[in-house]
């Protein structure tokens, strides 16, 4: 795997990580506080993180499609 491919994969992990942490936070906020407004805010963060995940995947795909990069 090339250095560039590695980096792109790493970049996908960050938004994925934010989705995971925010989902756990959302669960806890609802369970312990029942704070709906806060939960909505957290869901928005999760949706945005999904978008950046998708963007990163697109970058990875473009990169993989480029045959020059297979080393």
């Amino acid at each position: 795997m090339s250095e560039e491919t590695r980096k792109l994969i790493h970049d996908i992990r960050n938004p994925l990580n934010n989705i995971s942490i925010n989902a756990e936070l959302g669960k806890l906020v609802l369970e312990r506080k029942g704070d709906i407004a806060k939960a909505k805010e957290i869901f928005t963060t999760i949706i945005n993180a999904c978008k950046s995940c998708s963007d990163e995947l697109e970058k990875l795909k473009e990169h993989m499609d480029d045959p020059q990069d297979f080393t």
Partner: protein
Amino acid sequence: MTQILLVDDDPQFLQATTELLELLGHQVSTASTVEEASRLARTTLFTHVILDVILPDGSGLHVLDSLPENGQNTQVTLVTGHPSVKSIVKNLYGPNIHYLIKPINLEQLESLFNQQADSTRIKQHYGHLVGESAPMQELYQMIERVANTHANVMLIGESGVGKEVVASAIHYASRTEGVFIPANCGAFARDLISSELFGHEKGAFTGATHRKAGVFEQAQGGSLFLDEITEMPIELQPNLLRVLETQQVTRLGGTSSIDINCRVISATNRTEVEIAEQGHLREDLYFRLAVFPIHIPPLRERVEDIPLLVEHFLNTFNRQYQSTIGIDEASLERLMQYDWPGNIRELRHAIHRAYIMADMDKKLLSLPDDLSSPFSKVGSDPHFNGITVGKTVEDVEKELIETTLEHLAGDKKRAAEMLGISLKTLYNRLNSYAESTTE
């Protein structure tokens, strides 16, 4: 409770994880660069550091260099997307390293703190203090009380009782925004005390090439610990008094004053009577500093804590040297019988030495034949316990007579002269002591 330093350059992750950890009942400080994290790590004692390995200004591992020397109890967790990082770092920092692999979930996070509960069974009150004895319970109550106020605290206790540790505990219990800044008044060069305490402007004096913030400014919103306060030259004390009275400090060479807002915790190993009689502190300054005086008990008044402390130090050394050394009952008994004039510092030193000399086959500490340090024999005659509140006049008289006789090798005539009593009175006293012991 745990005090966590969370370091990551992703603001979204930082915010969500902080909220999550706080909901779980932990206290969290955050940083997004190596520099910021190092600054926090130097001044606050964290129980956990959760660290992203790749940060904008360098490797997150550099933060570990800033952990204080006594921070060996800090559990370090590396956040990584690559499980392979494990093998690289594994042996560098010993067994205190844990890993969180992205994406992180709640189970992973919680497991970090459960591991902690298993590995250190000994409770550290306010993150610092070990001991369950009655004098310590009293101390904890005092800390609890004062933590909720802004009162200045003066810690009074013998050398080696752990005044700085108690100061850190007070800071910890106060849950302030600011940091804990320790300063030793006995260690400052005389000419530089004012600059260290109050700071200076560039060019304030020869050699002042940069503007410098004094310790009062650095402790803004936190706690300033002034150790050995009674060693501060008397002629410089009015300057300190003025800062405490006005709650404002002016840097040397500066024109405008800066508002300060920190708790001052001072410490001395002199007694209040000594301070007053020998004039180590101006009276007005004493009252400003000792709004809430706290006496820290010497180790010999809490002998029952010795096994806990020994175990705590053994845990520390075992982690540090990656071993599993223990102690046998006979050795523990000896440690409990000794009176530790150098207090916890001396105990820690004795354990460390015995650890190095340990029997590696049996994995047991090896104590020297004589526990006492050269410092412990100075100025204390073990036979004469001196005057303390609670003794009767008879007790003191008996001690005085016996010590005098011992000193004069049993010469009763000279002893009577020295004591200023008749030989007959001396005989009467000695007879009554002999009677009371045969009863």
